[in-house]
């Protein structure tokens, strides 16, 4: 026998998960159905079902299998990872404004990855950039965390200003590195192309890079959601409720860095996904971490897939970078959150 509250709770949670999954699947189908060349799902099924020699449009299934499907998959994975990282950072910092963009996690990852590009070691091994981005993310997040910890009550001004200062510093250093490499046109072009972010020319090899860190990161975030719920009471009470604060901190920063670092290394920064998605999802399904995490990840995937679809179809056959689109939409949203914030207890 279960308590009626648990039952009701479980039903609403299940419905929300179901709805988000359906939206995610629809986004995926839309994303692989539209593009500068007219190939769609029907072509793929026709290709799979029919005799390989018999069909008329040779390039359509090829476009789907080698371009659109991996691209949409990667967009979904990155969106889910960033949204999950946003949920964890908001829980850890006990602040609905904390997110990879605001905390400087993304810019830290971008800087170290740019350094690797500059040094030319990126071509040595396919894991070089993800590892560099991971360490950049871990450094900047721990740095902001340690500064924020020193201020009384973790006040939001300190957190935001530290994040802003750190982001500008990392941004300036990244620009410096690009300007250093300007003489080598090819290197600059490669760095810039990667930095602007987005999923153009991303394929199965990028999924190969990202899939394992994402899975490990997402599993870790799920394990952390129980104690992160307790952290809503603040560190002292959480400690009194048997939560090991030091360990929770370390693991959360590790998970955030793994997810953000990997996402940055394959698709650039994609600003504001990690802020906006958890925020909206929390309004819809409440702050309970496990539910929030799962549904945010699904919503993050849908939104990123759709954003990428818009970015590559709006002035087809040219595309613009999806990171620009998320910034254009995310920055005003961020302002709106700040302006409409209620005073806390």
């Amino acid at each position, binding site marked *: 026998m279960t308590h009626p509250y648990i039952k009701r709770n479980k039903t609403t949670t299940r419905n929300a998960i179901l709805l988000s999954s359906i939206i995610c699947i629809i986004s995926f189908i839309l994303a692989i159905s539209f593009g500068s060349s007219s190939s769609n799902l029907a072509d793929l099924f026709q290709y799979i079902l029919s005799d390989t020699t018999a069909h008329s449009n040779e390039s359509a299934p090829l476009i789907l299998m080698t371009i659109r499907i991996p691209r949409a998959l990667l967009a979904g994975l990155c969106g889910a990872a960033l949204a999950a990282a946003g949920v964890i950072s908001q829980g850890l910092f006990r602040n609905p404004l904390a997110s990879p963009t605001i905390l400087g996690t993304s810019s830290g990852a971008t800087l170290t990855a740019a350094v690797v590009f500059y040094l030319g070691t990126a071509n040595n091994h396919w894991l070089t950039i993800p590892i560099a981005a991971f360490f950049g993310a871990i450094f900047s997040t721990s740095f902001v965390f340690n500064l924020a910890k020193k201020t009384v009550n973790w006040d939001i001004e300190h957190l935001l200003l530290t994040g802003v200062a750190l982001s500008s510093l990392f941004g300036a250093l990244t620009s410096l590195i690009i300007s250093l490499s300007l003489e080598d046109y090819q290197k600059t072009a490669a760095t810039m192309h990667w930095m602007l972010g987005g999923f153009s020319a991303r394929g199965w090899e990028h999924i190969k890079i990202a899939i394992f860190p994402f899975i490990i990161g997402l599993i870790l975030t799920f394990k952390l959601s129980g104690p992160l719920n307790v952290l809503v009471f603040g560190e*002292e009470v959480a400690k009194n*409720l048997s939560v090991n604060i030091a360990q929770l901190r370390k693991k959360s920063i590790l998970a955030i860095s793994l997810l953000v670092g990997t996402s940055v290394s394959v698709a650039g920064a994609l600003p504001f996904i990690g802020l906006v998605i958890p925020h909206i999802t929390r309004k819809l399904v409440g702050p309970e971490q496990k539910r929030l995490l799962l549904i945010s990840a699904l919503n993050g995937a849908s939104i990123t897939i759709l954003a990428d679809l818009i970015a590559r179809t709006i002035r087809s056959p040219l595309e613009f970078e999806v990171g620009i689109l998320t910034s254009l939409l995310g920055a005003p949203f961020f302002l709106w959150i700040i302006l409409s914030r209620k005073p806390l207890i």
Partner: protein
Amino acid sequence: MIACTNLSVSKKEFSILNHVNINIPDRSFYTILGPNGSGKTTLLKCICGLNQEYSGTIKINKEDAKTFDEEKLSKNITWIPEHLNIPFEYTALELTVLGRFPWHQGHPKMIDYEKAIEALAILDLQKKQNQSIQSMSSGEQKKTLLARALASEAEIIILDEPLANLDLAAAKKVCNIFRKLSEEGKTIVASLHDLSLTYRFATHCAFLKAGILVSSGVKESVFVANNIENTYEVNVETVYDSNGLPHLIY
């Protein structure tokens, strides 16, 4: 039984607690009284293990509190601080269930919900259990956070200023609940500012002034004009009512 012996705490060169000796027996409603800055919160934090930087010893059921690991501490002592800033819109029920984390480790069962609902009902919050804490009045928020103490299975409950933000009726009710809990076997230690409620409901009390224990023990023997005068530096007059019971006027 909580026994503090020679408990001293100092921060930089300031002495916050100075050789405090205090024995808190089981099944008592023990109130700590004293002016602001007298060291009440520090004393409570030392007992529940949140402040480990003290000299002297604290023994909980004859075991040194410093040897307790996190799990043992959390299952024996519940800590309810004065202020809590809840940054997200958790419901009263969700928060109360979260307060039972040491017992369910993030996977609440039927019993956890039952205890939480029961605790909220005792504090007249049954109709607000699915309401977000941020939409409540400050008194309701305070009661929601106190519900955690009632839902807990720990034998010792330590509360810092549990009556802050509560109106007269609610404060009286909460004190009554504490007294009842202590009679049912729990040990309640609370810092209070309300002398008349203490006199009416507490079993024991201690007066602290500038980190020094003025007096402690059974309420009837400690609650005398002299101690209150010394602690708060106010004049106290004792009058006797028609039944011959003493009343303090300050």
